[in-house]
Protein backbone atom coordinates (compact mmCIF):
# COMPACT_ATOMS: atom_id res chain seq x y z
CA UNK A 1 0.00 0.00 0.00
CA UNK A 2 1.31 3.47 -0.89
CA UNK A 3 0.46 6.40 1.35
CA UNK A 4 1.20 10.03 0.53
CA UNK A 5 1.41 12.58 3.32
CA UNK A 6 1.13 16.21 2.27
CA UNK A 7 2.85 18.66 4.60
CA UNK A 8 1.76 22.28 4.31
CA UNK A 9 4.27 24.80 5.62
CA UNK A 10 2.63 27.57 7.65
CA UNK A 11 3.89 30.40 9.89
CA UNK A 12 4.69 29.40 13.44
CA UNK A 13 2.24 31.56 15.42
CA UNK A 14 4.21 31.20 18.63
CA UNK A 15 6.42 33.82 16.98
CA UNK A 16 5.26 37.37 16.27
CA UNK A 17 4.02 37.65 12.71
CA UNK A 18 4.15 41.05 11.06
CA UNK A 19 2.19 42.60 8.24
CA UNK A 20 4.27 43.70 5.23
CA UNK A 21 4.58 47.32 4.14
CA UNK A 22 1.86 46.85 1.51
CA UNK A 23 -0.67 46.22 4.28
CA UNK A 24 -2.09 43.20 2.44
CA UNK A 25 0.34 40.38 3.07
CA UNK A 26 2.68 39.07 5.71
CA UNK A 27 6.28 40.22 6.00
CA UNK A 28 8.15 37.04 4.96
CA UNK A 29 11.17 37.97 7.09
CA UNK A 30 9.01 37.79 10.20
CA UNK A 31 7.88 34.24 9.47
CA UNK A 32 9.28 30.95 10.60
CA UNK A 33 7.59 28.19 8.60
CA UNK A 34 6.72 24.85 10.16
CA UNK A 35 4.42 22.01 9.08
CA UNK A 36 0.77 22.68 9.86
CA UNK A 37 -0.10 21.05 13.15
CA UNK A 38 -2.70 18.63 11.85
CA UNK A 39 -0.31 17.61 9.04
CA UNK A 40 1.96 16.26 11.79
CA UNK A 41 -0.98 14.13 12.87
CA UNK A 42 -1.52 13.04 9.26
CA UNK A 43 2.12 11.89 9.11
CA UNK A 44 1.74 10.02 12.40
CA UNK A 45 -1.42 8.24 11.18
CA UNK A 46 0.45 7.27 7.98
CA UNK A 47 3.35 5.84 9.99
CA UNK A 48 0.90 3.88 12.16
CA UNK A 49 -0.66 2.43 8.97
CA UNK A 50 2.83 1.68 7.64
CA UNK A 51 3.57 -0.33 10.77
CA UNK A 52 0.29 -2.24 10.47
CA UNK A 53 0.32 -2.98 6.75
CA UNK A 54 4.00 -2.73 5.76
CA UNK A 55 2.96 0.25 3.63
CA UNK A 56 5.29 2.73 1.95
CA UNK A 57 4.97 6.34 3.13
CA UNK A 58 5.98 9.26 0.93
CA UNK A 59 6.13 12.70 2.52
CA UNK A 60 5.61 15.57 0.13
CA UNK A 61 5.78 19.36 0.47
CA UNK A 62 5.76 22.41 -1.77
CA UNK A 63 9.21 23.96 -1.97
CA UNK A 64 9.70 26.83 0.46
CA UNK A 65 11.88 27.76 3.40
CA UNK A 66 11.65 25.08 6.04
CA UNK A 67 10.36 22.40 3.67
CA UNK A 68 13.68 20.54 3.67
CA UNK A 69 13.71 20.41 7.47
CA UNK A 70 10.15 19.14 7.54
CA UNK A 71 10.86 16.46 4.92
CA UNK A 72 14.08 15.26 6.58
CA UNK A 73 12.20 15.08 9.86
CA UNK A 74 9.54 12.95 8.17
CA UNK A 75 12.27 10.63 6.88
CA UNK A 76 13.81 10.45 10.34
CA UNK A 77 10.39 9.51 11.74
CA UNK A 78 10.10 6.63 9.30
CA UNK A 79 8.81 7.91 5.95
CA UNK A 80 10.28 5.94 3.05
CA UNK A 81 10.54 8.79 0.56
CA UNK A 82 10.52 12.57 0.71
CA UNK A 83 9.54 14.63 -2.31
CA UNK A 84 9.66 18.37 -2.81
CA UNK A 85 7.41 19.96 -5.43
CA UNK A 86 9.42 22.71 -7.08
CA UNK A 87 8.26 26.25 -7.42
CA UNK A 88 4.93 27.92 -6.85
CA UNK A 89 2.30 28.53 -4.31
CA UNK A 90 2.53 28.48 -0.56
CA UNK A 91 0.75 30.23 2.26
CA UNK A 92 -2.54 31.83 1.43
CA UNK A 93 -2.63 30.28 -2.02
CA UNK A 94 -4.10 27.01 -0.76
CA UNK A 95 -5.99 26.50 -4.02
CA UNK A 96 -2.97 26.87 -6.28
CA UNK A 97 -0.95 24.68 -3.92
CA UNK A 98 -3.52 21.89 -4.02
CA UNK A 99 -3.67 22.17 -7.82
CA UNK A 100 0.11 21.91 -8.00
CA UNK A 101 0.13 18.76 -5.87
CA UNK A 102 -2.65 17.25 -8.00
CA UNK A 103 -0.65 17.92 -11.18
CA UNK A 104 2.45 16.37 -9.66
CA UNK A 105 0.44 13.29 -8.68
CA UNK A 106 -1.24 12.98 -12.06
CA UNK A 107 1.78 13.63 -14.23
CA UNK A 108 3.36 10.21 -13.92
CA UNK A 109 6.42 11.58 -12.17
CA UNK A 110 7.01 8.53 -10.02
CA UNK A 111 4.30 9.37 -7.49
CA UNK A 112 1.74 6.84 -8.65
CA UNK A 113 0.04 4.64 -7.68
CA UNK A 114 -1.09 6.10 -4.39
CA UNK A 115 -3.74 4.30 -2.34
CA UNK A 116 -4.27 7.01 0.24
CA UNK A 117 -3.42 10.70 0.63
CA UNK A 118 -3.35 12.01 4.18
CA UNK A 119 -3.03 15.66 5.08
CA UNK A 120 -4.20 17.83 7.95
CA UNK A 121 -7.90 18.63 8.16
CA UNK A 122 -7.24 22.35 7.91
CA UNK A 123 -4.46 24.92 8.34
CA UNK A 124 -4.35 28.35 9.94
CA UNK A 125 -3.95 30.05 6.57
CA UNK A 126 -6.69 28.23 4.64
CA UNK A 127 -8.42 31.43 3.55
CA UNK A 128 -9.13 30.03 0.07
CA UNK A 129 -10.44 26.70 1.29
CA UNK A 130 -9.03 23.44 2.63
CA UNK A 131 -6.28 21.46 0.90
CA UNK A 132 -7.82 18.00 1.39
CA UNK A 133 -11.18 18.58 -0.38
CA UNK A 134 -9.59 20.80 -3.06
CA UNK A 135 -7.03 18.08 -3.80
CA UNK A 136 -9.67 15.33 -3.69
CA UNK A 137 -11.76 17.14 -6.25
CA UNK A 138 -8.81 17.63 -8.59
CA UNK A 139 -7.96 13.93 -8.37
CA UNK A 140 -11.59 12.80 -8.60
CA UNK A 141 -11.19 10.87 -5.33
CA UNK A 142 -13.47 10.60 -2.29
CA UNK A 143 -12.83 12.93 0.65
CA UNK A 144 -13.58 13.04 4.35
CA UNK A 145 -12.25 15.48 6.96
CA UNK A 146 -11.85 15.77 10.74
CA UNK A 147 -10.53 12.22 10.70
CA UNK A 148 -9.28 10.64 13.92
CA UNK A 149 -8.70 7.07 12.79
CA UNK A 150 -8.15 5.18 9.55
CA UNK A 151 -8.57 1.43 9.36
CA UNK A 152 -7.60 -0.01 5.99
CA UNK A 153 -8.52 -3.32 4.39
CA UNK A 154 -5.90 -3.46 1.63
CA UNK A 155 -7.41 -6.59 0.06
CA UNK A 156 -10.71 -4.89 -0.69
CA UNK A 157 -9.25 -1.38 -1.22
CA UNK A 158 -11.68 0.01 1.30
CA UNK A 159 -11.26 1.83 4.57
CA UNK A 160 -13.27 2.56 7.68
CA UNK A 161 -12.65 6.16 8.60
CA UNK A 162 -13.64 7.76 11.89
CA UNK A 163 -14.75 11.38 11.75
CA UNK A 164 -15.27 13.59 14.76
CA UNK A 165 -18.56 15.34 15.33
CA UNK A 166 -19.56 17.96 17.91
CA UNK A 167 -19.76 17.05 21.56
CA UNK A 168 -17.45 14.04 21.34
CA UNK A 169 -19.63 12.00 18.99
CA UNK A 170 -17.88 10.08 16.19
CA UNK A 171 -19.07 8.71 12.88
CA UNK A 172 -17.59 5.62 11.22
CA UNK A 173 -17.60 5.89 7.45
CA UNK A 174 -16.94 3.45 4.67
CA UNK A 175 -14.54 5.14 2.23
CA UNK A 176 -13.29 3.39 -0.91
CA UNK A 177 -9.63 3.84 -1.82
CA UNK A 178 -7.86 5.73 -3.21
CA UNK A 179 -9.10 8.67 -1.16
CA UNK A 180 -7.93 11.96 0.34
CA UNK A 181 -8.47 12.27 4.09
CA UNK A 182 -8.10 15.38 6.25
CA UNK A 183 -6.71 14.21 9.60
CA UNK A 184 -7.61 16.06 12.79
CA UNK A 185 -5.72 13.83 15.22
CA UNK A 186 -3.80 10.59 14.79
CA UNK A 187 -4.66 7.56 16.92
CA UNK A 188 -1.58 8.41 18.99
CA UNK A 189 0.17 11.77 19.46
CA UNK A 190 2.83 12.52 16.81
CA UNK A 191 6.03 10.68 17.64
CA UNK A 192 9.10 12.57 18.78
CA UNK A 193 12.36 12.18 16.90
CA UNK A 194 15.67 13.47 18.32
CA UNK A 195 17.48 16.20 16.38
CA UNK A 196 20.47 13.87 16.00
CA UNK A 197 18.32 11.48 14.00
CA UNK A 198 17.11 14.29 11.72
CA UNK A 199 20.73 15.38 11.17
CA UNK A 200 21.66 11.80 10.34
CA UNK A 201 18.82 11.71 7.78
CA UNK A 202 20.14 14.96 6.24
CA UNK A 203 23.54 13.33 5.79
CA UNK A 204 22.49 9.96 4.45
CA UNK A 205 19.09 10.37 2.80
CA UNK A 206 17.88 12.40 -0.16
CA UNK A 207 14.89 14.55 -0.92
CA UNK A 208 13.65 14.07 -4.48
CA UNK A 209 12.32 17.00 -6.48
CA UNK A 210 9.47 16.91 -8.97
CA UNK A 211 8.56 19.73 -11.33
CA UNK A 212 4.88 19.50 -12.20
CA UNK A 213 3.52 20.86 -15.49
CA UNK A 214 2.81 24.57 -15.26
CA UNK A 215 -0.72 25.87 -15.39
CA UNK A 216 -2.22 29.26 -14.81
CA UNK A 217 -4.03 29.38 -11.45
CA UNK A 218 -5.67 32.80 -11.12
CA UNK A 219 -6.13 33.92 -7.53
CA UNK A 220 -9.83 33.72 -6.71
CA UNK A 221 -9.80 36.32 -3.92
CA UNK A 222 -8.83 39.98 -3.49
CA UNK A 223 -7.13 40.63 -0.17
CA UNK A 224 -7.77 44.28 0.56
CA UNK A 225 -6.06 44.47 3.89
CA UNK A 226 -4.27 42.46 6.55
CA UNK A 227 -3.84 43.70 10.08
CA UNK A 228 -3.45 42.62 13.65
CA UNK A 229 -6.92 42.44 15.16
CA UNK A 230 -8.32 45.34 17.18
CA UNK A 231 -9.56 43.71 20.32
CA UNK A 232 -12.94 44.79 21.63
CA UNK A 233 -11.58 44.55 25.16
CA UNK A 234 -8.54 43.50 27.04
CA UNK A 235 -7.82 41.81 30.33
CA UNK A 236 -6.71 43.77 33.34
CA UNK A 237 -3.14 42.57 33.62
CA UNK A 238 -1.67 41.55 36.97
CA UNK A 239 2.07 42.04 37.37
CA UNK A 240 4.66 40.60 39.67
CA UNK A 241 6.35 37.38 40.65
CA UNK A 242 4.14 34.26 40.73
CA UNK A 243 3.56 34.56 44.49
CA UNK A 244 2.58 38.22 44.20
CA UNK A 245 0.23 37.52 41.32
CA UNK A 246 -1.24 34.58 43.22
CA UNK A 247 -2.01 36.89 46.12
CA UNK A 248 -3.78 39.36 43.84
CA UNK A 249 -5.78 36.58 42.21
CA UNK A 250 -6.89 35.22 45.56
CA UNK A 251 -8.36 38.64 46.41
CA UNK A 252 -10.15 38.73 43.07
CA UNK A 253 -11.54 35.21 43.50
CA UNK A 254 -12.63 36.01 47.05
CA UNK A 255 -14.35 39.13 45.78
CA UNK A 256 -16.31 36.97 43.35
CA UNK A 257 -17.38 34.60 46.10
CA UNK A 258 -15.33 31.77 44.69
CA UNK A 259 -13.39 30.90 47.87
Amino acid at each position, binding site marked *: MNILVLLKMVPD*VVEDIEVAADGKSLDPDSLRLIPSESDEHALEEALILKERHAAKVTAIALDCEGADDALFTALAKGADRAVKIAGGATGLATRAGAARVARALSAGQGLQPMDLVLTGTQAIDDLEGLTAPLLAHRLGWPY*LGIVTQVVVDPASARSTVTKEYPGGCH*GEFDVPLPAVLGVQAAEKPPRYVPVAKVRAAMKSLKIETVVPPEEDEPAPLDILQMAKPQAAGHAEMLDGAPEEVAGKLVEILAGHGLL
Partner: protein
Amino acid sequence: MSASIWVLVEQWRGQVSEITYEVLALGRELADGLGVPLQAVLLGHNAKALADSLGKANSVLYADHPALVEPTPEACTIALAQLLGERQPEALLIPLTNVTLGIGSLVSAAVGVPVINFCKQVSVVSGGLQAQCVLYGGKIEAVVKAKQKPALFGIWPGARTPDQGRATSAPQVETVGVAFPRDPCVRLKRYVEPEAGDVDVTKQNVLVSVGRGIQSRDNLELAEELAETLGGAVCGSRPVIDQGWLPLTRQIGKSGLTVKPKLYLAAGISGAPEHVEGIKGADLIVAINSDPRAPIFDVAHYGVVGDALDVLPALTEAVRARKG
Protein backbone atom coordinates in the same frame (compact mmCIF):
# COMPACT_ATOMS: atom_id res chain seq x y z
CA MET B 1 -28.52 35.49 -11.53
CA SER B 2 -31.38 35.15 -9.13
CA ALA B 3 -30.04 37.93 -6.88
CA SER B 4 -30.55 36.41 -3.48
CA ILE B 5 -28.46 35.54 -0.47
CA TRP B 6 -28.45 31.88 0.51
CA VAL B 7 -27.70 30.36 3.89
CA LEU B 8 -26.91 26.65 4.13
CA VAL B 9 -28.87 25.21 7.03
CA GLU B 10 -26.78 22.95 9.19
CA GLN B 11 -29.03 20.15 10.24
CA TRP B 12 -27.64 17.05 11.87
CA ARG B 13 -29.38 14.10 13.50
CA GLY B 14 -32.74 15.76 13.11
CA GLN B 15 -31.88 19.16 14.57
CA VAL B 16 -31.06 22.58 13.16
CA SER B 17 -27.91 23.78 14.90
CA GLU B 18 -27.62 27.07 16.77
CA ILE B 19 -24.98 28.40 14.39
CA THR B 20 -27.54 28.19 11.58
CA TYR B 21 -29.56 30.91 13.29
CA GLU B 22 -26.43 33.03 13.74
CA VAL B 23 -25.74 32.78 10.00
CA LEU B 24 -29.40 33.48 9.18
CA ALA B 25 -29.12 36.70 11.21
CA LEU B 26 -26.05 37.69 9.23
CA GLY B 27 -27.69 36.68 5.96
CA ARG B 28 -30.75 38.78 6.78
CA GLU B 29 -28.57 41.88 7.19
CA LEU B 30 -26.75 41.23 3.92
CA ALA B 31 -29.94 40.51 2.00
CA ASP B 32 -31.55 43.69 3.34
CA GLY B 33 -28.40 45.67 2.56
CA LEU B 34 -28.46 44.49 -1.05
CA GLY B 35 -32.25 44.66 -1.39
CA VAL B 36 -32.58 40.98 -2.27
CA PRO B 37 -34.38 38.05 -0.64
CA LEU B 38 -32.78 35.69 1.88
CA GLN B 39 -33.24 31.99 1.21
CA ALA B 40 -32.36 29.16 3.54
CA VAL B 41 -31.13 26.00 1.80
CA LEU B 42 -32.22 22.87 3.66
CA LEU B 43 -30.82 19.53 2.49
CA GLY B 44 -32.09 16.30 3.97
CA HIS B 45 -34.48 13.40 3.77
CA ASN B 46 -37.95 13.61 5.31
CA ALA B 47 -36.69 16.75 7.02
CA LYS B 48 -39.18 19.32 5.75
CA ALA B 49 -40.49 20.07 9.25
CA LEU B 50 -37.12 21.58 10.12
CA ALA B 51 -37.96 24.46 7.80
CA ASP B 52 -40.53 25.80 10.29
CA SER B 53 -37.94 27.55 12.47
CA LEU B 54 -36.18 29.24 9.56
CA GLY B 55 -38.58 32.18 9.25
CA LYS B 56 -35.79 34.74 9.31
CA ALA B 57 -35.43 33.81 5.65
CA ASN B 58 -37.97 34.89 3.04
CA SER B 59 -38.21 31.31 1.88
CA VAL B 60 -36.63 27.89 2.24
CA LEU B 61 -35.30 25.84 -0.66
CA TYR B 62 -35.77 22.26 0.52
CA ALA B 63 -34.01 19.46 -1.33
CA ASP B 64 -35.10 15.97 -0.25
CA HIS B 65 -33.22 12.83 -1.25
CA PRO B 66 -32.28 9.60 0.55
CA ALA B 67 -28.63 10.36 -0.25
CA LEU B 68 -28.92 13.51 1.90
CA VAL B 69 -29.98 11.73 5.08
CA GLU B 70 -26.38 12.15 6.35
CA PRO B 71 -24.94 15.56 5.37
CA THR B 72 -21.55 14.38 4.15
CA PRO B 73 -19.54 16.99 2.23
CA GLU B 74 -19.85 14.78 -0.84
CA ALA B 75 -23.64 14.46 -0.76
CA CYS B 76 -24.17 18.14 0.07
CA THR B 77 -21.82 19.16 -2.73
CA ILE B 78 -23.71 17.11 -5.33
CA ALA B 79 -26.96 18.83 -4.30
CA LEU B 80 -25.54 22.34 -3.89
CA ALA B 81 -23.68 22.24 -7.21
CA GLN B 82 -26.98 21.60 -8.97
CA LEU B 83 -28.85 24.30 -7.07
CA LEU B 84 -26.11 26.88 -7.57
CA GLY B 85 -25.92 26.04 -11.25
CA GLU B 86 -29.65 26.46 -11.71
CA ARG B 87 -30.22 29.55 -9.63
CA GLN B 88 -26.97 31.52 -9.28
CA PRO B 89 -27.49 33.46 -6.03
CA GLU B 90 -25.28 36.37 -5.09
CA ALA B 91 -23.66 34.36 -2.30
CA LEU B 92 -23.99 31.22 -0.18
CA LEU B 93 -23.16 31.50 3.51
CA ILE B 94 -22.02 28.23 5.09
CA PRO B 95 -21.73 27.78 8.88
CA LEU B 96 -18.29 26.44 9.82
CA THR B 97 -18.57 23.43 12.13
CA ASN B 98 -17.42 19.84 12.31
CA VAL B 99 -20.58 18.81 10.49
CA THR B 100 -20.07 21.09 7.50
CA LEU B 101 -16.28 21.22 7.26
CA GLY B 102 -15.16 20.68 3.71
CA ILE B 103 -18.48 21.54 2.04
CA GLY B 104 -17.40 25.08 1.09
CA SER B 105 -14.14 23.88 -0.47
CA LEU B 106 -15.71 20.95 -2.34
CA VAL B 107 -18.55 23.07 -3.73
CA SER B 108 -16.10 25.82 -4.65
CA ALA B 109 -13.99 23.31 -6.60
CA ALA B 110 -16.98 21.54 -8.18
CA VAL B 111 -18.70 24.73 -9.37
CA GLY B 112 -15.53 26.75 -10.05
CA VAL B 113 -16.40 29.65 -7.75
CA PRO B 114 -14.41 31.19 -4.89
CA VAL B 115 -14.82 30.33 -1.23
CA ILE B 116 -13.77 32.73 1.51
CA ASN B 117 -13.03 30.78 4.66
CA PHE B 118 -12.86 31.78 8.34
CA CYS B 119 -15.24 34.77 8.10
CA LYS B 120 -16.08 36.46 11.39
CA GLN B 121 -18.01 39.19 9.63
CA VAL B 122 -19.46 39.90 6.20
CA SER B 123 -20.75 43.33 5.17
CA VAL B 124 -22.22 45.14 2.19
CA VAL B 125 -19.72 47.63 0.81
CA SER B 126 -20.41 49.61 -2.38
CA GLY B 127 -23.13 47.20 -3.43
CA GLY B 128 -20.94 44.13 -2.97
CA LEU B 129 -19.92 41.77 -0.18
CA GLN B 130 -16.76 42.09 1.83
CA ALA B 131 -15.57 39.66 4.52
CA GLN B 132 -13.38 40.01 7.60
CA CYS B 133 -11.53 36.75 8.09
CA VAL B 134 -9.62 35.40 11.06
CA LEU B 135 -6.28 33.82 10.16
CA TYR B 136 -3.17 32.44 11.84
CA GLY B 137 -4.89 31.35 15.04
CA GLY B 138 -6.47 34.76 15.52
CA LYS B 139 -3.29 36.79 15.14
CA ILE B 140 -4.20 38.36 11.81
CA GLU B 141 -7.45 39.64 10.33
CA ALA B 142 -7.86 40.01 6.60
CA VAL B 143 -10.43 42.02 4.64
CA VAL B 144 -11.32 40.01 1.56
CA LYS B 145 -13.54 40.16 -1.51
CA ALA B 146 -14.33 37.41 -3.99
CA LYS B 147 -13.61 38.03 -7.66
CA GLN B 148 -16.63 36.13 -8.87
CA LYS B 149 -20.23 35.28 -8.08
CA PRO B 150 -21.79 33.29 -6.62
CA ALA B 151 -19.23 33.47 -3.83
CA LEU B 152 -19.20 31.07 -0.89
CA PHE B 153 -18.48 32.34 2.61
CA GLY B 154 -17.50 30.02 5.47
CA ILE B 155 -18.87 31.71 8.61
CA TRP B 156 -17.19 31.28 11.99
CA PRO B 157 -19.42 30.70 15.04
CA GLY B 158 -20.28 33.88 16.92
CA ALA B 159 -20.82 36.20 13.94
CA ARG B 160 -24.24 37.03 15.44
CA THR B 161 -26.28 35.58 18.31
CA PRO B 162 -28.69 32.72 17.58
CA ASP B 163 -31.62 34.75 18.93
CA GLN B 164 -31.00 37.35 16.25
CA GLY B 165 -31.70 34.67 13.66
CA ARG B 166 -34.86 33.16 15.12
CA ALA B 167 -38.32 34.11 13.91
CA THR B 168 -41.82 33.49 15.18
CA SER B 169 -43.38 32.82 11.80
CA ALA B 170 -42.60 29.86 9.52
CA PRO B 171 -41.30 30.67 6.05
CA GLN B 172 -42.53 29.62 2.62
CA VAL B 173 -40.98 26.32 1.57
CA GLU B 174 -40.14 25.48 -2.01
CA THR B 175 -39.29 21.81 -2.52
CA VAL B 176 -36.64 21.41 -5.21
CA GLY B 177 -35.44 18.28 -6.95
CA VAL B 178 -31.82 17.17 -6.90
CA ALA B 179 -30.45 14.18 -8.78
CA PHE B 180 -27.89 11.68 -7.56
CA PRO B 181 -26.75 9.78 -10.66
CA ARG B 182 -24.91 7.36 -8.39
CA ASP B 183 -24.87 6.76 -4.64
CA PRO B 184 -22.27 8.84 -2.79
CA CYS B 185 -19.09 6.78 -2.24
CA VAL B 186 -18.50 7.96 1.31
CA ARG B 187 -21.13 6.23 3.43
CA LEU B 188 -21.90 6.50 7.15
CA LYS B 189 -21.87 3.09 8.84
CA ARG B 190 -22.73 4.14 12.39
CA TYR B 191 -22.41 6.80 15.03
CA VAL B 192 -20.34 6.15 18.13
CA GLU B 193 -21.57 8.13 21.12
CA PRO B 194 -19.00 9.65 23.49
CA GLU B 195 -18.03 7.60 26.51
CA ALA B 196 -19.58 8.94 29.69
CA GLY B 197 -16.83 10.91 31.37
CA ASP B 198 -16.31 10.87 35.05
CA VAL B 199 -17.07 14.57 35.13
CA ASP B 200 -19.48 16.72 33.15
CA VAL B 201 -17.43 19.86 32.66
CA THR B 202 -20.49 21.81 31.50
CA LYS B 203 -21.90 21.54 35.02
CA GLN B 204 -18.82 22.74 36.87
CA ASN B 205 -18.65 26.15 38.57
CA VAL B 206 -14.88 26.25 38.38
CA LEU B 207 -12.78 25.03 35.49
CA VAL B 208 -9.00 25.00 35.32
CA SER B 209 -8.27 24.65 31.63
CA VAL B 210 -4.91 23.79 30.15
CA GLY B 211 -3.43 24.31 26.73
CA ARG B 212 -0.15 23.68 25.02
CA GLY B 213 1.62 25.86 27.58
CA ILE B 214 1.31 23.05 30.13
CA GLN B 215 4.02 21.39 28.02
CA SER B 216 3.56 17.79 29.11
CA ARG B 217 1.07 15.34 30.55
CA ASP B 218 3.09 15.24 33.77
CA ASN B 219 2.33 18.89 34.46
CA LEU B 220 -1.40 18.26 34.41
CA GLU B 221 -1.22 17.54 38.12
CA LEU B 222 -0.50 21.23 38.75
CA ALA B 223 -3.88 22.01 37.21
CA GLU B 224 -5.55 19.14 39.02
CA GLU B 225 -4.29 20.34 42.40
CA LEU B 226 -5.57 23.85 41.76
CA ALA B 227 -8.91 22.53 40.50
CA GLU B 228 -9.29 20.38 43.57
CA THR B 229 -8.44 23.28 45.89
CA LEU B 230 -11.04 25.45 44.18
CA GLY B 231 -13.66 22.69 44.04
CA GLY B 232 -13.64 22.42 40.28
CA ALA B 233 -12.42 20.24 37.43
CA VAL B 234 -9.71 20.21 34.77
CA CYS B 235 -10.43 20.60 31.09
CA GLY B 236 -8.40 21.59 28.07
CA SER B 237 -8.12 23.01 24.59
CA ARG B 238 -7.91 21.04 21.35
CA PRO B 239 -4.10 20.51 21.21
CA VAL B 240 -4.11 18.94 24.69
CA ILE B 241 -6.83 16.48 23.67
CA ASP B 242 -5.10 15.69 20.37
CA GLN B 243 -1.96 14.88 22.35
CA GLY B 244 -4.00 12.40 24.39
CA TRP B 245 -3.36 14.18 27.72
CA LEU B 246 -7.08 14.61 28.42
CA PRO B 247 -10.09 12.73 27.04
CA LEU B 248 -12.46 14.20 24.48
CA THR B 249 -15.09 14.76 27.17
CA ARG B 250 -12.84 17.45 28.65
CA GLN B 251 -12.37 19.39 25.41
CA ILE B 252 -13.57 22.99 25.35
CA GLY B 253 -14.21 24.85 22.15
CA LYS B 254 -15.88 24.84 18.76
CA SER B 255 -15.56 21.11 18.21
CA GLY B 256 -15.87 20.25 21.91
CA LEU B 257 -18.01 21.66 24.66
CA THR B 258 -19.29 25.13 25.47
CA VAL B 259 -19.08 26.02 29.14
CA LYS B 260 -20.39 28.86 31.31
CA PRO B 261 -18.69 28.42 34.69
CA LYS B 262 -18.33 31.05 37.40
CA LEU B 263 -14.57 30.83 36.94
CA TYR B 264 -12.64 29.74 33.86
CA LEU B 265 -8.93 29.76 34.45
CA ALA B 266 -7.04 29.32 31.16
CA ALA B 267 -3.45 28.21 31.71
CA GLY B 268 -1.12 28.10 28.73
CA ILE B 269 -3.97 28.54 26.25
CA SER B 270 -3.32 30.92 23.37
CA GLY B 271 -6.97 31.82 22.84
CA ALA B 272 -7.46 30.80 19.22
CA PRO B 273 -10.99 31.54 17.99
CA GLU B 274 -12.00 27.87 18.07
CA HIS B 275 -11.34 27.72 21.79
CA VAL B 276 -12.70 31.12 22.76
CA GLU B 277 -15.99 30.14 21.15
CA GLY B 278 -16.53 27.66 23.95
CA ILE B 279 -15.89 30.00 26.89
CA LYS B 280 -17.48 33.34 26.07
CA GLY B 281 -20.32 32.82 28.55
CA ALA B 282 -18.04 32.32 31.58
CA ASP B 283 -18.60 34.83 34.41
CA LEU B 284 -14.92 35.34 35.15
CA ILE B 285 -12.08 34.42 32.83
CA VAL B 286 -8.51 34.52 34.13
CA ALA B 287 -5.72 33.78 31.67
CA ILE B 288 -2.09 32.82 32.26
CA ASN B 289 0.17 32.82 29.22
CA SER B 290 3.84 33.54 28.62
CA ASP B 291 3.03 35.43 25.39
CA PRO B 292 1.83 38.96 26.17
CA ARG B 293 0.21 39.06 22.72
CA ALA B 294 -1.79 35.88 23.14
CA PRO B 295 -5.35 36.45 21.89
CA ILE B 296 -6.72 34.97 25.13
CA PHE B 297 -5.95 38.29 26.84
CA ASP B 298 -8.54 39.95 24.59
CA VAL B 299 -11.34 37.91 26.08
CA ALA B 300 -10.08 37.37 29.64
CA HIS B 301 -11.13 39.66 32.48
CA TYR B 302 -7.76 39.28 34.21
CA GLY B 303 -4.45 38.26 32.71
CA VAL B 304 -1.06 37.18 33.89
CA VAL B 305 1.97 37.12 31.62
CA GLY B 306 3.95 34.26 33.01
CA ASP B 307 4.74 30.57 32.94
CA ALA B 308 1.69 28.54 33.90
CA LEU B 309 4.02 25.99 35.49
CA ASP B 310 5.06 28.66 38.04
CA VAL B 311 1.79 30.49 38.49
CA LEU B 312 -0.47 27.45 38.99
CA PRO B 313 1.32 26.04 42.05
CA ALA B 314 1.73 29.55 43.51
CA LEU B 315 -2.00 30.09 43.15
CA THR B 316 -2.82 26.70 44.66
CA GLU B 317 -0.74 27.53 47.70
CA ALA B 318 -2.24 31.00 48.05
CA VAL B 319 -5.79 29.60 47.82
CA ARG B 320 -5.01 26.92 50.40
CA ALA B 321 -3.56 29.55 52.74
CA ARG B 322 -6.63 31.74 52.31
CA LYS B 323 -9.05 28.90 52.92
CA GLY B 324 -7.11 27.99 56.05
